[in-house]
C-alpha cells in the first residue's frame, strides 16, 4: 500500500502543493468561479482571462489539501494558451483518468499525469477535480 501512497504523493504533487503556481487573484480576469467541497471545506476561486476564445491567463486562490492545491496549480498551468474547447476536452480526459476509463495518457501534460495516482483513492477524487470544475464553470459563464 505504500506504493499507492507514493503514487499519490509524487514529488511533482508535493512541489506544486508547497509552491503552487498561478496562486494569486487575477486582477484583469474576464471570468471566475468558485469550487467548494461542502463535505470537507476545501474552497478555491479560479480566475480566467480570455482573449477571444483562448485562455490567456489562469490563476487560483483558496484553501485545501495537497491534492486539491497541487491539482489547481497544475490545471491553471495546463490550460493557459488553450482554447475553451481544448480546455473542456482536457477536463474530460482528466476526469476519465481519475474515475476509470482512459488509460491512454498520451498528450496529457506531464504534471497533470502525475495526478493519476488519485485513482487508487476514490475518496480523494473530488479533491483533485474541485478546481477543474470551477475552471469549467468559469469558461461556461464566460461564453454566456
Amino acid at each position, binding site marked *: *500500500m*505504500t506504493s*499507492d*501512497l507514493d503514487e*499519490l*504523493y509524487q514529488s511533482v504533487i*508535493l512541489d506544486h502543493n508547497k509552491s503552487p503556481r498561478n496562486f494569486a487573484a487575477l486582477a484583469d480576469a474576464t471570468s471566475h468561479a468558485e469550487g467548494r467541497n461542502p*463535505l*470537507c*471545506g*476545501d*474552497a478555491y476561486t479560479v480566475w480566467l482571462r480570455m482573449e477571444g476564445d483562448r485562455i490567456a491567463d489562469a490563476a487560483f486562490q483558496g*484553501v*485545501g*489539501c*495537497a*491534492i486539491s*492545491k497541487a491539482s489547481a496549480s497544475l490545471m491553471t498551468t495546463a490550460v493557459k494558451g488553450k482554447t475553451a474547447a481544448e480546455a473542456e476536452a482536457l477536463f474530460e480526459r482528466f476526469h476519465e483518468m481519475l474515475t476509470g476509463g482512459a488509460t491512454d495518457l498520451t498528450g496529457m501534460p506531464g504534471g497533470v499525469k502525475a495526478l493519476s495516482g488519485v485513482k487508487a*483513492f476514490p*475518496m*480523494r477524487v473530488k*479533491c483533485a477535480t474541485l478546481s477543474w470544475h470551477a475552471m469549467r464553470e468559469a469558461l461556461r459563464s464566460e461564453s454566456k
Partner: protein
Amino acid sequence: MTTAATLDVTRIRADFPILGQPVHGRPLVYLDSAASAQKPQAVIDAVARHYRTSNANVHRGVHLLSQEASAAYEAARVAAARFLGAAEPGEVIFAHGTTSGLNLVARSYGDTHVRQGDHILVSELEHHSNIVPWQQLAIRKGGRVLKIPITDAGEIDLDAYRGLLSERTRIVAVSHVSNVLGTIAPIQEMADLAHDVGAVLVVDGAQSAPHLPIDVQALHCDFFACSGHKVYGPTGVGLLWGRKALLDAMPPYEGGGGMIDLVTFEKTTYAQVPARFEAGTPPVEAVVGLAAALDWFTALDSAALQAHEHDLMVYATGRLSELPGVTILGRSPRKASVVSFVVDGIHAHDVGTVLDTEGVAIRAGHHCAQPLMTRYGVSATCRASFCAFNTRDEVDTLMGGMRRVREVFG
C-alpha cells in the same frame, strides 16, 4: 481497602468482530468512534435474531410476531429511559438520530414558543445539526439566533452567556460534549441560568452518551438528544428525551400512521406522547439493536471506562504535542475522549490519507462545525477519538503513522 476497577480491554476487544478485519493489510486502529462506533457481537446478534425470529411491524398487528416485536420495541424504551435517567419511559422518543431529535424540538417546541424578536442562544462550538435547525426556526418565526462565544481553551464563555440571556431568550442549545474539542459543557449551570429567564435548555448529547454517565434529571436540562450508532448501536435510531410536561403540550412534528388517536377528513386527534412523535413504521431492528448496545455498554464499569478513555486522551495529547508543528485544539481540563489537532503546512485530509494506509482511521475535515473552524482560523482538523476498546499501543501506531506523514511531506 478498595481498588478502582480497571477495564478489561482485551475482553472488550474480543466483542468486536471488525477489529479482526485488516485495513490495507494492517490491523485496524479505529480512532473514529466519535463519527460512528463499531458494533459488539451482541448488537449484531440481536439485530440478526430479530430478523430471524421476531420481525414484524409494531403496534399494528394482532399476530404473535407483531406482539413480540412490539414488546421488544417497548422494552427498549424502558432500557433507554434507564440509560438516560428519565423519570419514566414515556419521556423517551425514538428519533432517527441526534439530528432528527433536535429538528423535532425545533419544529414542535420551537414553532409554538418562539415569536417575532425572540432569541435562541447557540454555542459557537456546535455541530451543524445544533445550529441549522435553530436558524431555520428563527427564519420561520422571525426570531434571532445569538452565538454564545467560547474561550481560546474551547470552553463556553459563561460570562458572555449570562450577558446574552434575557427575557427574550426562549431556547438555549448546547452540546454536552463538543465533537471537535471534547469540551464538557457545564450543562446544569447553563440550564439553571436559562430557567431563570424562562428559557429551556436543549442538549446535543451525541458525544456525551458514549462516554459520560447520563442523568437528564441531574443535568436540569429540558431536552436531550443522542444517537444510537455512537453508543455502539445501529444507525437510524436516536433518543430524544424531554420533560413530560413539555412533551405533552407539544404538537406533532410529522403526521402519519401510529401517531393518531382518531382520523376523519374533518379532524384528526393525536396519540399521546411518545407515540405522537413516532409517525410511520419505526426502525424496529435498530431499536432492538440499540437495546442490546445499551445492555452491553451499561455492563461496563462507568468509572473505569471514563478513566480508561481519559488516560488514552491524555496520553495521545502528550505524544502528539511532542511532534514539531502539531497544535492541539481544545485545552479545557474538562474534556472527553477526543483529540483534535492540526499539523503546520499539512492539510488534515493528507494526514488522514497517509494514516489510513497505515491502518489508522481518524476523522479529517471540518467535523460539521464550520463556525468553530472559523473561530480557530483553520479550515479543517484531524480528530482522533477514543472508545472502550482502544489501547495505548494503538496511540503508538498513530504516532508511527504521524512519522510517516512527516516522511511523505518533509
